Structures are given as C-alpha cells and as structure tokens.
C-alpha cells in the first residue's frame, strides 16, 4: 500500500492513468461514504454561517446599549440625584410650607369665587325674569 508521501510524489498524468484503470477495485460503499462525509461537512459549514448571520446584529446592539447607558449616566442621572435642602432649620422650612399652603389656598379661593359667581348668575337671571313677569 502506498503511503501519503508516495502519492504526493505521483505526477498528474500517472494519477489520471491510475484513476482510469478499471482493473483496480474500489472498496464497496466508498463512494457513498465520501458523499456522506462531504455533505456532512457542507451542512456543518452552512449551520456555522447561519449562526454567524443570526447574531450579526449583536455587536451593533451591544455598542448601542453601551452608548445608551453612557447617555443615561450623563443626562438622566443628574436629574435623579437628590437636591440639596433649601433650609437647614426645620422651623424655617415649616414657615415656608405654611407660606406655600397659604399661596395655594389663595389661588384656590379665586377659583371657588369664580365658581360661586358663575352659579349665582343663572339664579339672578331667573329671579329677574320672574320679577319682570309678575
């Protein structure tokens, strides 16, 4: 039996001659075995390419996520940090709170007065109409 180095040293003409020699017996099932091996190798290569294609977006998304996290740290984090108390003294803070309550109450009262005035108008119109009629 020839060794690999012997086969490598054979010229193309000699190889062609050996291949076309019908007297040399080919082992049974060799063709099927070679075909199956080639097909399996092709299938493995195809699966590898598909897998690469399936995760092709991963580096882009990773890069984008990194940018998004940096943007969040730069833009959102400062807005989430706790502000500094305006007052050191609870009594002063309470005075400001009272002032705020009074401000809100004044503004609310304006709304209430407007609502009351609006509810009085139809009553006045009805009353005037009744007085004019009778």
């Amino acid at each position, binding site marked *: 039996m020839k060794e690999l180095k012997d086969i490598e040293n054979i010229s193309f003409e000699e190889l062609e001659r050996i291949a076309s020699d019908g007297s040399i017996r080919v082992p049974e099932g060799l063709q099927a075995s070679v075909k199956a091996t080639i097909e399996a190798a092709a299938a493995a290569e195809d699966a590898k390419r598909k897998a690469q294609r399936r995760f092709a977006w991963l580096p882009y998304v990773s890069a984008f996520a990194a940018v998004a996290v940096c943007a969040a740290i730069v833009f959102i984090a400062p807005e989430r940090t706790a502000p500094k108390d305006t*007052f050191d003294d609870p009594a002063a803070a309470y005075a400001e709170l009272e002032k705020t309550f009074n401000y809100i109450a004044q503004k*609310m009262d304006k709304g209430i007065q407007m609502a009351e005035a609006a509810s009085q108008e139809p009553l006045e119109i009805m009353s005037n109409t009744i007085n004019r009629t009778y």
Partner: protein
Amino acid sequence: MKKIIIIAAAILMTASAFAQDGKSIYNKYSDEAGVSAVYISPAMFRLMGRLPDIEVTDGESFNLGAFVRSLTGMYIINSENKDINSSLKSEAERMISKGKYEMLMEAKDDGETVRMYTSGTDKIIDSFVFLVKEPGEYTFICFDGKMDRAEVEKAVGETMKKL
C-alpha cells in the same frame, strides 16, 4: 437595523418617561437665572414633624403634624424668565400627562390659569401638583408623600372656611 431602531426608541421612551417627576423638574430648573426654587427633603419633613407647634390640630380636627409627617418632598419652582416659563410649562404638562394624574381644579381669570392635580388611590394621594401660569410668570409646586386623601380634603375645606 430595524431591531436597533426599535430598541433605541424603547430606551429613549423609557428614559423620557423616567425623567418626569417633581425631582427631575426641580433639578433641571432650580439653578436657572430668573428662577427661585425651594426644596424640602424627606429628612426635613421628619424633623418638621417633631416641631411642637404643629402638633396642635388646626381648626376642629385636622392634624397638621400627621399631614406634614406624611410628606416626603416639596418642590417649588417659580420662574419669571420667559424662556424658562414655556419650557417649564411643557415639562410640567408632560409630567402630568405621563403620570396618572387627575385634575382636581382649574380656574382661568384675567390671563391667570391655576390647575391642581393629584395622583394616587381613593385613599392615598402620592403626588399633589399645583401649577400657576400668570403673565410673565410660571409656578410649579409638587408635594410627594403618602397623604391621606380625606385629610387633604379636610385641610382644603378648613382653608376655604378661613378665607
């Protein structure tokens, strides 16, 4: 590429929604020119809750001390800067529209608009927002906490009686 755009949009939407509350608005505008700002922290509210003066009940039955202790933050932004006013107004309105706020009151008179909103449940108010738009001025007031809705309504009623 579509996936990247969708993810980007989702992140930006989440970020913008996340940014909208009293604290973020306060942090954004409190240092601007023509703006006066007041912030009272949860720790300060706890200290205020220990003040002897507020232990007395206000009026007939309203316990101001309990009410103050239920607050965890107060943010006030008052702007007289025209450029800030429009931006602050849109930020405040975005906060209201993004959150689950319910309008309690709106009054418009002589160029002044007052709006009051609350968010929370039937029993608890977790955020109270008061917006006042006046010519050349805009005021944003936000209270955070776990306020008893009945107590707040009682306080509002008592305040009305006093005026």
